């Protein structure tokens, strides 16, 4: 087959990607590439202090190229800290979404498979979770169990589990009535095998879209908690706690807060644009 025909065939299956979505994907790719390659390409580090250039403004506001986005009150390079912070925030959000996706899926499968009172309990838990604002739950857990990185990721990993549970439960129940599942169970395949190899792949696209929609919310939750000083703790840095510290320097160094603020906004916007687009594509299929 020639290249031209495979090109048209591909175009028929995948709808054209709108310009805004391309920009969003580009921004996320840029973030990921920078977090990987920046430490190799630049000698600026997160904690190195340049005391002669404290509170230096960014380039374009009277600053120099030695610190493109300026420095903070201790003379630490804002760009280097931004890169490290973005990496922390994105990794944590990714981990949290992976945890809640897995957890929610397993609970949903369990409810659909066992049924009966287990199902009732799961449905009640989902309803309860929906009615309480998650930030209150995460704050309470932080107060009770103290503040550590692992716990923080686990707490964020509880965010949104009920969405996956609800979806997986409903879709698995529907699948159990379908011919292919009936055929497999009649043939004597084990239920874990049927669920993992046959049911889940069928609903994976919906789950992935749900993850994309949850992702910006997790970023906002993580940054909010870190901003309040109840999330990521120094010496680690995340976009939220960078902004939290920058807040004290709004008068003397607005860029310390503005740079991570803009980064949070752009990351959350990019992922939700991608998520909206993915949802509309799934809806059309």
């Amino acid at each position, binding site marked *: 087959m020639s290249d031209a025909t495979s090109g048209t065939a591909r175009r028929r299956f995948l709808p054209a990607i709108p310009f805004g979505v391309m920009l969003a994907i580009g921004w996320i790719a840029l973030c990921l590439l920078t977090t990987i390659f920046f430490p190799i390409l630049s000698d600026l580090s997160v904690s190195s202090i340049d005391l002669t250039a404290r509170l230096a403004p960014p380039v374009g506001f009277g600053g120099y190229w030695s610190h493109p986005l300026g420095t903070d009150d201790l003379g630490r390079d804002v760009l280097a800290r931004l890169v490290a912070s973005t990496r922390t925030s994105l990794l944590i959000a990714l981990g949290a979404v992976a945890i809640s996706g897995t957890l929610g899926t397993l609970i949903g499968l369990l409810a659909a498979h066992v049924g009966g009172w287990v199902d009732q309990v799961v449905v009640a838990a989902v309803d309860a979770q929906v009615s309480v*604002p998650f930030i209150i739950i995460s704050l309470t857990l932080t*107060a009770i169990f103290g503040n550590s990185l692992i716990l923080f990721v686990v707490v964020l990993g509880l965010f949104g589990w009920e969405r996956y549970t609800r979806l997986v439960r409903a879709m698995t129940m529907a699948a159990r009535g379908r011919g292919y599942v009936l055929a497999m169970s009649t043939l004597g395949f084990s239920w874990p095998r049927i669920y993992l190899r046959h049911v889940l792949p069928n609903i994976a696209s919906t789950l992935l879209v749900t993850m994309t929609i949850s992702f910006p919310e997790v970023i906002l939750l993580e940054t909010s908690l870190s901003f*309040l000083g109840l999330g990521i703790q120094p010496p680690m840095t995340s976009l939220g706690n960078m*902004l939290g510290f920058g807040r004290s320097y*709004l008068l003397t160094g607005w860029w310390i*807060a503005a740079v991570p*603020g803009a980064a949070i906004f752009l990351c959350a916007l990019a992922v939700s644009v991608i998520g909206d687009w993915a949802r509309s594509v799934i809806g059309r299929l």
Partner: protein
Amino acid sequence: MNTGFRLLRALVSLWLIVTLVFVALRATGDPITAIFDPDNFTAEALEAYRRQWGYTGTVFDQYVVYITSLLRGDFGFSSMGNRGAAAVVIERIPATLQLVGCSAFLMMAIGFPVGAYAALHDGGRIDRFVMTFSTVGFAVPNFVMGLAFILLFSVNLRLLPSNGYGTWQHLVMPVLTIGISQSAIFTRFVRSAVLDARNLQCVTSATARGVAPWEVFWRHVVPNAMLPLVTITPLLVGAMVAASAVVESVFGWPGIGRLIVESVAQRDLAVLQMIVMMIAAVMITTNLVVDLAYAQLDPRTSRARAH
């Protein structure tokens, strides 16, 4: 489901949450040693605090003490304020109500007209602009918006105080922050509710009968669009609670939201548990009221159940 059953379910939910809070707080070890370093305090001092805050006896004894004192309206002792937790929490309520009330008003003042206009001109330039604005608004965390307002109105223009409480000037920025960020989501809800209502048969038939467009809108579209909007009220209340926790901290607003953050940072568990219960009670009541109101507003739900 009748009213009595709904009421009972709401009470059970409340009891479950109260119990969960108790289990979570006590399951994590001795609350006294969590607050005080045992190396720096004598055993008698620790014992005295334990008696003062009701942490004596077995876990079941503590649970009984806990429930009975809750029923008597005693929510424990705030280690941070050195007085009753109830007093500490209650004095913060007016500030939060003021903030949330004004913000909700702003949210609706933006959301209803803009969302309805976008839905009536569905697909047009304004509609696309509104949807883009809503996506962008959702991605701006409210603390970023709050800091941007401080940078603009306090640092650059020197118009408004950045921090504090008391005058209307203090109220402007927190209300703008919560109101605008919530309206980004609310506008979407209004838009889709109005869109759905526009496609109803009664609307088509009224238009076909030659009823004036504004009359179709007010008599048929608006009442039908209100129904889905009533059901999202609990969601909005929850979002307001979450937003106030962050925004009150940004603007030093002395309300419940900032008190949550303070109590978590200080590990003042008595205050925290009272706030959690209060929020749970508010959410449960909201859900109950919406449930009951929905049955009243939409006769179809109660008639369908009668079958």
